[in-house]
């Protein structure tokens, strides 16, 4: 089944952070310890209480300063590498929901070391709670299964956040991209064939965030490929120890 997807149109984002707060509110995530690093981005990074973070990046276009906003969250990869990483340590640590495509961690994820899981994620998303449980955006599966849109989408006042069937989101994304191409030749969709959270940006994605696209950063691709290779061996090793 094609499942669901998000389309995040960064050109419409005004950085109101409504989505960030709505996410916290719906998931009953408490406050995070934060510090002022001289940026409006607050908290400075995703954490176990922040599944969604509006990232602020200052850049320069034609000699003028511009701000880029990037509402960062788990991309719900079509083939989630984090799932392989967790499965290497524990069964049932991740649910890949068939109907929607949501990738959701269970409490068993605490059996897997956060460093490995975080490294496996091409977008640097997973974080660990104090008790070891690994957490991240759940696609608001509890809402979606009840026919409601995710909390972050519901609250977005500018339609930067959109959610629906994968087909309808891809269509919306392509249409918006075509509309923006003339004015912004660098406009592009980020990894649309690999993820369920499709971002539209109008400049070099690294100017928005170091992990905006999977192919950037230091050797993530290679690391992923290696992990894929090693996964069967790891699983086998576990089976042997258990046997």
């Amino acid at each position, binding site marked *: 089944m094609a499942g669901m997807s998000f389309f995040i149109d960064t050109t419409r984002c005004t950085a109101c952070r409504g989505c960030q707060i709505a996410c916290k509110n719906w998931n009953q995530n408490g406050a995070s310890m934060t510090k002022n690093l001289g940026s409006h981005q607050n908290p400075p990074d995703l954490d176990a209480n922040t599944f969604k973070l509006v990232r602020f990046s200052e850049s320069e276009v034609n000699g003028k300063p511009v701000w880029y906003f990037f509402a960062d969250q788990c991309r719900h990869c079509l083939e989630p590498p984090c799932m392989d990483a967790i499965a290497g340590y524990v069964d049932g640590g991740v649910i890949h929901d068939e109907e929607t495509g949501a990738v959701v961690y269970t409490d068993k994820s605490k059996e897997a070391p956060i460093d490995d899981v975080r490294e496996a994620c091409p977008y640097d998303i997973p974080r660990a709670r104090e008790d070891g449980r690994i957490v991240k955006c759940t696609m608001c599966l509890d*809402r*979606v*299964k*009840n*026919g*409601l*849109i995710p909390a972050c989408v*519901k609250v977005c006042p500018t339609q930067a956040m959109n*959610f*629906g069937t994968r087909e309808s989101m891809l269509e919306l994304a392509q249409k918006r991209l075509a509309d923006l191409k003339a004015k912004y030749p660098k406009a592009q969709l980020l990894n649309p064939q690999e993820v369920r959270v499709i971002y539209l940006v109008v400049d070099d994605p690294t100017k928005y965030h170091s992990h905006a696209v999977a192919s950037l950063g230091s050797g993530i691709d290679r690391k992923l490929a290696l992990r894929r290779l090693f996964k069967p061996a790891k699983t086998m090793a576990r089976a042997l120890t258990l046997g």
Partner: protein
Amino acid sequence: MLSDAETIMRKAVALARSSKPAYHELYDFLERVFAAQIQVKPRCRLSLNPMDGEAIKARWTAGLPLMRRWDFPVDLKAAHEVLEAVTRAVPEHNRELSGACSAIFKALAQNPSAKDAIWESFLHHDWNPWEEWLDTAGVDLPSLLYVARSCLRPSIERTAEERLQRACPDDHWKAGFCPVCGSLPSLISLEGEGQRRAHCSWCGTPWRLARFQCPVCDNRRHASLGYLYAEQEPGYRIDYCMECRHYFKTIDARERLWPLWIPLEEWTTLHLDLVAQREGWKTPPSPAPAVYETDGFAVPS
């Protein structure tokens, strides 16, 4: 190939099955009734009184509904087809519904020349003309009305859609009752940028309501309009009016992933009625097109 309406309806029922298990006994029955209505509707053949565009516009502008309930034409074949489907769908142990179905079948079989009159009798609202043909002894009246009106619904909706299409209004309908038949809403939805839309309890017509407006007494003062809301059930609320003490159930469609299927929501929000009534709010006397009388329409005697 399912029609769009049928896809939407089936999706809504499937979702309700998992998210509102309390109503599990209803779903098989309702799904089959809705499916029959949807399939029959495009085949309805209706002889609609001609009403020219000017006349429609004049009534619209004057705030008068376009038709009275008993002027809606009925496609007998369509009504009969739905009756058969409803009868097949009735759960085995439901004596009220099966009694209602057989009472109608019996009346139709015993009075073949009065078939039109029997069906049309159910278009009335404040007297019981069907008793002329129907043996109602031991028949549950609400079930009878529900079955009969379910059978008429495809004809009624088709007529309302046709009338509304020709009304082609440029300005909003301002009253709290339905622009087509004068009935009150069964449900209200919140859409888009927060527009409020009423859904007619009789002909299914949707129309815009003001953000602050009681459909019954037209009270528009925000200080005397309020709503009840349960945190466990996001997306639903009960709008009430402190002037006339009536309430309406409201669904926030902006939170919804899939389109609403209003006839299903009428059933799966029954617990909200209990909540509202426990708090002392009341449903308007329904059906209640009180507006006919002020309009100089002749009320049948």
